């Protein structure tokens, strides 16, 4: 079995909901309450040493409950391992603690998840839109945002 997932289950037995290693990717679905602790543990534990936060994204599973999912991809430079951490959030409460204190490089990834999906990162220093313009309303990558619904800044509507 996977060293990473075993260690994670060993240290946070109550928070890890499920794990799998489909397609060769170690994945753990965890609860959001102690997410910062879990991520800091993954970064600092001498057997794991996940010092790179490669990616953070949101996924919208419209129709499922809980609807949103925040996915972290981590990489360990020394151990040359990857892990994926997922957290599910409810539609009416898409709030999760920010991981900026653990890896400063994850700052803009969180801003993008806010911009595209509307996931709020509690404690983020600057949670503003990053890809879209400020006047844009809504969160475009949500499944219920129609693809061609335009909000033109200038020019005709269509």
């Amino acid at each position, binding site marked *: 079995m996977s060293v990473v997932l075993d260690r994670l289950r060993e240290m946070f037995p109550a928070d890890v909901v499920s794990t799998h290693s489909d397609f060769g990717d170690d994945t753990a679905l965890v609860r959001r309450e102690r997410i910062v602790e879990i991520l800091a543990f993954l970064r600092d534990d001498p057997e794991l040493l996940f010092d790179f936060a490669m990616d953070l994204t949101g996924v919208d599973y419209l129709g499922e409950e809980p609807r949103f999912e925040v996915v972290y991809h981590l990489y360990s430079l020394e151990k040359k391992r990857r892990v994926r951490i997922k957290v599910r959030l409810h539609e009416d409460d898409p709030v999760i603690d920010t991981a900026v204190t653990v890896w400063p490089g994850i700052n803009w990834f969180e801003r993008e998840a806010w911009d595209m999906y509307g996931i709020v990162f509690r404690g983020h220093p600057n949670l503003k839109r990053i890809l879209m313009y400020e006047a844009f309303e809504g969160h475009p990558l949500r499944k219920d945002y129609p693809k061609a619904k335009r909000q033109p800044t200038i020019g*005709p509507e269509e």
Partner: protein
Amino acid sequence: MAVKRVKDGASGYALTTLESLVAWGRKYSLYPFTFATACCGIEVMGAFGTHYDLSRFGAEVVRFSPRQADVLLVAGTVNYKMAPVLKRIYDQMLEPKWVISMGACACTGGFYNNYTVLQGIDKVIPVDVYIPGCPPNPEGIIDAVVWIQKIIETGAPRAAERWPIK
């Protein structure tokens, strides 16, 4: 091939000698402002490069200030965040000015039909020449510059004079 010019009441069949001289000077010394946003920008660089050499046509001096340019070459996708910037740049250019819309994204939005892409720059500024392609060959850019030169040479009305299209 001269075009009937209807402006200022002067309905001449051909341009006067002085106007021809001015047109000759203008067309062989176009100063492009390359508003290159995306992939088409790389082909613009290729057009100015040594294989395709746009300087043979006089349009070598690229000016990065709209105040000093006369052709606005919009190369690449313009989205709603960038569109006000484009309009402002266009407004800052001095008359007479021409606009070349290069590539499918600038002409009609390309294959991006979504919440963020402006479906063609002619929604916000008048365009004289459209170059289709994704991205067009640098030869397409040369073709467009030659078209602009023909427009200048014959005194044909610019797109700005029929803008906005009713």
